[in-house]
């Protein structure tokens, strides 16, 4: 039996109602964490404070920052990193990996269908209104064949562990999911700070992401191209994820470009270089749909490339992800995921979905309005945790306001029971102690031609404010290194 009187955990407070990732319900350390627990116990909390500030400085020096958009000002911040890693054992990981691939494939087939025959709607599985009222459905994608039939090359699936100990998917991100660079930087930072602990675990590497991404993107090159030229298209240095764009380009060994670096001639895309124009075949674009081509979408966009969409429609370039994928990661479509998986793959969903109430349905709307204090209210088309309301945290006045908003535009909202995200010991600056904090996990899946890759690690995000359930970095969350074990 492990000694629970560990120095650095002496004042760790366990809330019995929460699912703790490292302590079981009897307060014992779970098997996978035992070695780590005793290794960390060899340090004093003072050592820890020291290492923590070094890790922070390392992030700042590397320029690993992001921007938070607020009403008043925009700030550049480092993404708070926690030195105590999260460990996922091989059996659990197997479920997550298989489940993520299953979801990504089902979403891809769904996208093909809604931009072609729309059989899932004709068969009455998904209602037409969800597609026709979605701002993210692009009519221009109808009948278009993306190279090798892939739409969502890169998916970021957000998973939590509920207090029943089971994994649930909270949402699928298949537009331009970000965060993968943090997975790799977190690993680097932890290795620098506490290299020794890695000797005691057989952990999968996470540094192979970029090479796998490039390999898989190259499998979906445009028809007729022999050796494809790939670039990463960024909105520029003022984008919140610019660090990641530059990191991915650097590690893939490809050029990082802005819209003004590219031009279209006779429906082919070229990059301006000092040696003259260079043809581009695959664009990993981190610019949103509406901004990729001012001639086809938002005419005021200066981030895109005029004529890009025509080049795409003619099959001369691959865009990853394809335009119009946003229709499938809408929070209203999410609720149909179990049916979508069964419909296309004839399989049972491997990962659970959280039960969702659609405010667009009168009976469910009534339930939501009545039980609003027990529910999380989410706008269907906002990303990054913006606009989420947690019922039991609202004042009476806020509840009234929320109800009126929902009643005015019910289609815009869905509601879910308040899920209890699992907690993980996290070092807290203010108290200089380890405390329980809620965590989730973003898993990155890449689809290529008859091949897929899941990054064995993923981004564990931590809600740093006590009791807070929203882990998004834009909402003040932090992150942890995430270990997937080869064996226990």
């Amino acid at each position: 039996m492990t000694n629970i009187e560990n120095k650095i955990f002496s004042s760790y407070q366990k809330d019995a109602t929460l699912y703790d990732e490292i302590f079981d319900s009897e307060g014992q350390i779970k098997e996978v964490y035992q070695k780590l627990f005793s290794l960390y116990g060899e340090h004093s909390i003072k050592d820890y404070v020291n290492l923590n500030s070094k890790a922070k400085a390392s992030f700042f020096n590397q320029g690993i920052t992001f921007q938070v958009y607020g009403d008043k000002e925009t700030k550049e911040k480092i993404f708070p990193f926690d030195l105590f890693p999260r460990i996922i054992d091989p059996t659990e990981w197997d479920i997550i990996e298989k489940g993520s691939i299953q979801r990504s494939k089902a979403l891809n087939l769904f996208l093909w269908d809604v931009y072609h025959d729309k059989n899932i709607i004709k068969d009455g599985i998904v209602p037409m209104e969800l597609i026709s009222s979605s701002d993210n459905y692009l009519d221009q994608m109808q009948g278009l064949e993306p190279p090798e039939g892939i739409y969502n090359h890169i998916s970021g699936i957000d998973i939590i562990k509920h207090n029943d100990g089971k994994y649930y998917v909270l949402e699928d991100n298949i537009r331009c999911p970000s965060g993968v660079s943090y997975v790799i930087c977190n690993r680097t930072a932890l290795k620098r700070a506490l290299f020794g602990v890695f000797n005691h675990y057989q952990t999968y590497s996470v540094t192979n992401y970029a090479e796998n991404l490039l390999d898989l993107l190259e499998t979906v090159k445009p028809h007729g191209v022999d050796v494809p030229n790939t670039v990463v298209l960024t909105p520029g240095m003022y984008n919140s994820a610019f660090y990641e764009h530059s990191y991915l380009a650097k590690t893939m060994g490809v050029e990082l470009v802005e819209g003004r670096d590219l031009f279209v001639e006779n429906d082919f895309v070229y990059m301006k270089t000092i040696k003259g124009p260079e043809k581009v075949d695959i664009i990993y674009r981190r610019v949103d749909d509406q901004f990729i081509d001012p001639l086809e979408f938002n005419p005021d966009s200066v981030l895109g490339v005029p004529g890009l969409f025509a080049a795409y429609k003619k099959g001369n370039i691959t865009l990853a992800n394809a335009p119009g994928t946003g229709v499938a990661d809408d929070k209203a479509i999410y609720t149909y995921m179990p049916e979508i998986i069964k419909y296309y793959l004839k399989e049972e969903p491997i990962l659970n979905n959280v039960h969702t109430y659609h405010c667009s349905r009168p009976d469910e709307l009534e339930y939501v309005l009545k039980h609003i204090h027990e529910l999380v209210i989410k706008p269907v088309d906002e990303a990054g945790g913006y606009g989420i309301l947690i019922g039991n945290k609202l004042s009476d006045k806020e509840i009234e306001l929320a109800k009126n908003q929902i009643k005015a535009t019910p289609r815009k909202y869905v509601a879910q029971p308040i899920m209890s995200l699992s907690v993980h010991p996290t070092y807290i600056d203010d108290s200089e102690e380890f405390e329980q904090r809620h965590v989730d996990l973003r898993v990155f899946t890449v689809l290529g031609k008859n091949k897929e890759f899941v990054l064995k690690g993923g981004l564990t995000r931590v809600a740093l404010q006590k009791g807070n359930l929203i882990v998004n970095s834009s909402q003040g969350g932090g992150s942890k290194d995430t270990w997937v074990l080869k064996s226990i």
Partner: protein
Amino acid sequence: MSIEYTINYSTTNTYENIVKSAFWQFLILPESNKNQELVNVKLNNSLNVANEISINGYGFKTVRIHTKKEFTKLLFEATFHVIKNDINPYQFTEDNTEEIKLINNINYLIDFESFLKCTTYTKLPKTDHKLFVFDWSKTIFQNLQNLNNWVYNFIYFKVNKTNIYTTLEEIIINKHGVCQDFTHLFCAIARKNKIATRYTSGYLHQGNGYFGDSQMHAWAEAYIPKIGWVGFDPTNDLLADINHIKVCHGKDYQDCAPLKGVIYATGKNKTSHTVQVLSQQQ
């Protein structure tokens, strides 16, 4: 019978300040379809840059011009030769039970969803004005023909009173407008009655005093079950015929705008177009 047309399109764009770089996309090329054939295209621009033929997001042919030379004036001219066949008289049914069943079928609603939905330009306001009401004892074709006539009488053709930002609400209150306003109102009422309808852009040969020459023209195409797309020109109270030369279609004007540009310059600009449609009967 078929007619050979020569269409001359020209536009002049002048800019207050020097333009450093620009892209234009013209959606003005007649399409080739079962009733018409584009046999010859001549393009010319005053900047001496390439006229690229490409497509827009809906697959219709476009002409694109890109320049990095500084300028303040662009003149663009295009000449098309089109052979247009007379449109065969349609075989319309007398009995509407079957067609009403078809427009309520789930597959029809899903397949034609793009042309059944309400868009910015085809949104009917809540007004006290009495708008056209379908008579379901009649066939869809009869209803659309009556709607065509109703729109024609409802709006007075008047140029320079409306622009591309005018809403249907203003049109309905003020009752004047140009071909795109007539067409949007036709589409809006037809769609409200579950008839898939698309906004169509093109050229009109004005033999005898119809509106629509000297500018590009707009009309509507409605889908009639078992027959297909039939063109209605509410500006002239006509069915689209041998005089209507189609360029493209879309949900509304926005999908069919003849000229789109991305201009890197400050200050004001002026655009003028002229269109000439000449015929030679074969």
